[in-house]
């Protein structure tokens, strides 16, 4: 690097020694600064990484599964106290009298008299 020499006798044309301000002079300090910058760049880049839909869904699957598990755990005691009424026989849903259904479910073939009796309305108790 050549010094400015427009006015050789003028001391203001001579470069100043500003080495005391040189940030790279202290090598250990400079190395620490470079490492700190690189470290912060890695952290900043990770914070601003582009988001993918699949990644976003995957990131939510675990907490969603955990939440579902907690809800299930909390609901087990309540579910165990539930008494489900017995389902009515299917013939009731079809309107078939119980006595008639029993006749057809029995092993022997019913007679006409038995069928007629099963179809008759049940007499009221006295």
């Amino acid at each position, binding site marked *: *690097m050549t010094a400015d020499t*427009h006015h050789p006798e003028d001391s203001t044309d001579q470069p100043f*020694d*500003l*080495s005391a301000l*040189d*940030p790279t002079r202290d090598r250990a300090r400079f190395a620490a*600064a470079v*490492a700190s910058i690189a470290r912060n760049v890695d952290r900043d880049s990770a914070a601003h990484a582009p988001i993918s839909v699949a990644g976003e869904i995957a990131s939510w699957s675990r907490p969603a599964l955990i939440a579902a598990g907690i809800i299930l755990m909390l609901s087990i005691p309540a579910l165990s106290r539930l008494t489900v009424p017995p389902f009515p026989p299917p013939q009731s849903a079809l309107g078939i009298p119980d006595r008639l259904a029993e006749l057809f479910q029995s092993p022997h073939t019913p007679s006409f008299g038995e069928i007629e009796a099963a179809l008759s309305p049940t007499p009221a108790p006295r």
Partner: protein
Amino acid sequence: MFSKSMPTERGGAPSHPSDPPDGDLVVRARAGDRGAFETLVRRYYRSAYSIALAYTRNRADAEDVCHDALVRAGARLATCRDPKRFGPWLYAIVRNHAKNAVARGFVRRSEPLSHATARSPSDPAADAERADVRATLERALESLSPVQREVVLLHDLDGRTHDEIAAMIGTSSGMCRQHLFKARRRLRAALGLTLRGDDDR
């Protein structure tokens, strides 16, 4: 005290022909090569620091601004449209950070460099003398205008040529020489007053 001396390394360009050019380093850094990015940091740190110091006028704040600007540049490397012009792109970031920091009052944003842990073991007396010289220079620099500070720091501290500095600050080489001439004259005047003040005690 302030004898003629120039920096051993010029900032902002490969020191040797075998060193990779900026464009290659930027491309490699974008691909995740941390070593390439660190090479760029080492290459441009003093230049960035010189610009930051021109605005902040003290070492600690200049280090913070320089650190934050380089972190931002590293994290936003994909936005550097022309990797060969990494230097001017970086300088614009540094300048913006410095101006914003001065306006805001120097708010630290990234993980700070621990000054205590970064200090290298050395002679305490020499350290104290260097700190004294540094403080004296910083006080003298305050007598300059921001552009004069920037020019004299880039030229006499960072070893830049007039053409390079002119391109960096957006002026002509001739204006750059004038700024440098005036800056040195003011610095000598400021330091001369300081010396006379010390002699009178």
